[in-house]
């Protein structure tokens, strides 16, 4: 039992190892310390080109009452007001010939920001994330689900990973989405148990991230476990190893 929880100290060690590997692999993780405290979090940003499914999504949380607003919000942002402002900066007829033709597909580019924090109450890592358009508008929960491939959606929404909730970021105080950690221990237990039985080292944070990350578009390259020296991924605190 005790082997399935993560102490804060182990969390930090797991993160350090993950950072080292990330640097070798160029995977873009960084550690963001919080000023004036020991705390901090892993951070990574990623850009994804997503085909937004325009059909309204009934996520687990979805209440059709806010669908109306949602649609209004996600409509093209240029308002009539903004449209009326024209430029006299460049003569319209004198088109700049040094520009290549825009090659814009039907898809939308979204900026994702992922944070990995430690939850003292669940004693697990927690994945926080937010997504925004290139204009800087944060996506609503409905839109986040909308960016998940339809084939996955149904399955995810009925799985323990579907508990995406909006929460204030505990360190930044800004609204973020998070994958609720209430089932984390449940799905980590067998992995850790197996590793322990086989005396195989395992990086809790990395293993956990490879399970939860893909749900929200965060890929964890396989190279983390194939290219690197396996000893580099030992991370469970021996003190935690109890009889399962």
């Amino acid at each position, binding site marked *: 039992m005790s082997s399935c929880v993560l102490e804060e100290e182990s969390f930090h060690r797991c993160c350090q190892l993950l950072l080292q590997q990330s640097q070798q692999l160029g995977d873009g993780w960084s550690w963001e310390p919080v000023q004036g405290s020991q705390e901090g979090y892993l951070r990574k940003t990623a850009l994804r080109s997503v085909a937004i499914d325009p059909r309204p999504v009934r996520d687990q949380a979805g209440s059709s009452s806010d669908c109306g607003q949602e649609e209004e919000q996600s409509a093209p942002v240029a308002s009539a*007001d903004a449209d009326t402002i024209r430029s006299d900066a460049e003569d319209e007829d004198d088109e700049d010939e040094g520009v290549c033709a825009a090659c814009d597909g039907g898809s939308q580019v979204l900026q994702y920001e992922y944070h990995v924090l430690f939850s003292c109450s669940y004693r697990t890592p927690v994945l926080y994330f937010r997504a925004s358009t*290139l*204009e800087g508008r944060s996506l609503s929960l409905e839109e986040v689900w909308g960016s998940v491939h339809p084939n996955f959606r149904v399955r995810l929404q009925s799985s323990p990973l579907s508990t995406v909730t909006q929460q204030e970021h505990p360190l930044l105080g800004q609204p973020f989405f998070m994958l609720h950690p209430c089932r984390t221990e449940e799905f980590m237990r067998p992995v850790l148990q197996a590793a322990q039985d086989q005396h195989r080292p395992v990086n809790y944070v990395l293993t956990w991230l490879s399970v939860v990350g893909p749900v929200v578009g965060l890929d964890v390259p396989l190279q983390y476990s194939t290219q690197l020296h396996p000893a580099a991924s030992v991370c469970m605190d021996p003190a935690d190893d109890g009889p399962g």
Partner: protein
Amino acid sequence: MASDTSGAASSAADLKLQFAPFSSALEAGFWHQLTQKKLDDYRLDESPKCIKGYYYNGDPVGLPTRLTLEFSAFDVDGPTPARCCPAIGTLYNTNTLDAFKTADKKALLEKEAKEIWDAIQSGAALKDPSILCRFILLTFADLKKYHFYYWFCFPALCFPEGIKIVQQPSVLEQVFSAKQIAALQEAYDGLCLRRETSAVPYFLMKYTDDTVQLAPLGDWDTFFTDTKKVTVGVYDPCTLSQHPGWPLRNLLVFLANRWGSKLDTVEVLCFRDRTLQGSRSIQHSVVFQVKLPDLPDNSVCPKSVGWEKNPKGAMGPRMVNLSECMDPKRLAESSVDLNLKLMRWRLVPTLDLDKVVNTKCLLLGAGTLGCNVARTLMGWGVRHITFVDNAKISYSNPVRQPLYEFEDCLGGGKSKAMAAVDRLTKIFPGVNSEGYNMSIPMPGHPVNFSQATLSQAQRDVEQLEKLISEHDVVFLLMDTRESRWLPTVIAANKRKLVVNAALGFDTFVVMRHGLKKPPVSPKVSAGADSSPSCSSASSSSSTPAGSVPSIPGSSLFSNIPGHKLGCYFCNDVVAPGDSTRDRTLDQQCTVSRPGLAMIAGALAVEMMVSILQHSEGGYAVASSSDDRMNEPPTSLGLVPHQIRGFLSRFDNVLPASLAFDKCTACSPIVLDHYEREGFHFLSKVFNSSHSFLEDLTGLTLLHQETQAAEIWDMSDDESI
């Protein structure tokens, strides 16, 4: 626009070099920070501010070439993200939309272009080539609506005749050997190391079959001994295989200005460096050769371009509406909803919140019960709450009525209905609340003193009828019995769900009224089940005497469907009258244990929510205390008819009782009269003594019939 360009390009064949412009990319944090700066720092200061963005050359194919501004954009001296190149910009934040619209974009662009040109001419760009890649950001922040208008400009100096391509762009791996590519990567990393940075925007390059040498731009004179053909490298954020990104553009002008006459062809390496799935690659970098044209007059700043097109491809600004994530009111709304949704995620997955949130609630009475009911409704996310009360807030109220404060009592006191609305809006601006300061006419309280009082009563009745029609649930939360009569009749007539809460000193009843079947269906005669209503629990203090068949209560009073349930008056054998007359003060006022109203108010709302969760709503079969061990009919549990609470024993029971065919409020004869005669009938009730309703419903007769039976009943377990 875009199509014109491509048309022109194809006609000029593949001769002229074309660049992929930057697309602006803003992170949500940027707008948050701009808002803070505007409020705390800039205020009305419109002077230009220095900000910083960055660009990246490691994107997967298909992503637009971006210049990104994030939270940290205002910290110009702060760190740039690893492997990204910084770009310095000028922020013009206007105070008005008008100033934004009328800003002289041409002048702004020319000013910025002039600075770049000056840096080129003075040689400053040689020392710090990042000067070549600058931007302008024109903004207007509407902080009332959280609408942000913005327009980016990426100034580029132009050769009047364009740039001739000598050798078509090719992917690096087609031009370089694997060895050369490895050497280039090593040389670039070495250059970064020497420069103590993780990205170099522009560099010089020499190579042989085996080796690659790189040097910073400033080393030009020592690095190149032969200038027939030089190779320059540019950190290239573009992912297109046939086009370089924007940062190259000003570099070429710089080269032409400084060495143009000496250069024959320039080879350009668009250095792209990405890591996918843990493996790094620069093979997809692009190489091509151009012939730099002469600049017509080396002393005059060339023509410049660079304002960004909007998403429609037109020359115009962009606007982003961030009210959803920045407006405190919107944030409060979504937080309230999300808090409720949490219940669904983990505890009650089948909970239908929409039904609750969208229910329009009419609260008759804004006193102790009304205040507590309103607060619990808010907790459930109910948005539409209407108050009716005719009283003013008095000094004794605030301690028991949680929507009022001492200040509300001053100057004679504010109207309760209005003050309650104000307070709800303060607590949660997303609520849609209205107050009506009006009286509800009551039986035994005559309205026929004058024509004026009569027509006032008529207006009050019409107003109440209108309000009941417009709402889904009517809460009866008044402090007298008779004031509940009129809304009971109207709501029964309109088939609206009624939740009633009434307090004793340490007892309370919370109940739903039976919901009559829709009028179209054949009326079920209450007479068919004419057994007088009686509570299955011993709690009812007004068990009507009568010919109760000797069937055990549990079987007779279980499984009563919602349309056969009684109302507040069904258990009474006297008609409502003036209960405040001939009463002492303590009898007139609600004197009850202070916690009672909170308990009863909360239970009234929770009962409503449970009813709404039942598939049959108000027609749901009444659950009773006996059902506590059974499978509950809704995801939230039981749907009782009544909750009777006894604070002295800290105990609640769940009685259910049938509608009484002689009820003074909901019996068919009363409803028929109201339906047929309307106010005419009502005014007779208001103006008459209680015997009018008792005669009408047959209660008088019942009294006479049961005079004798009462004696035997008294000796039983019930005390009357």
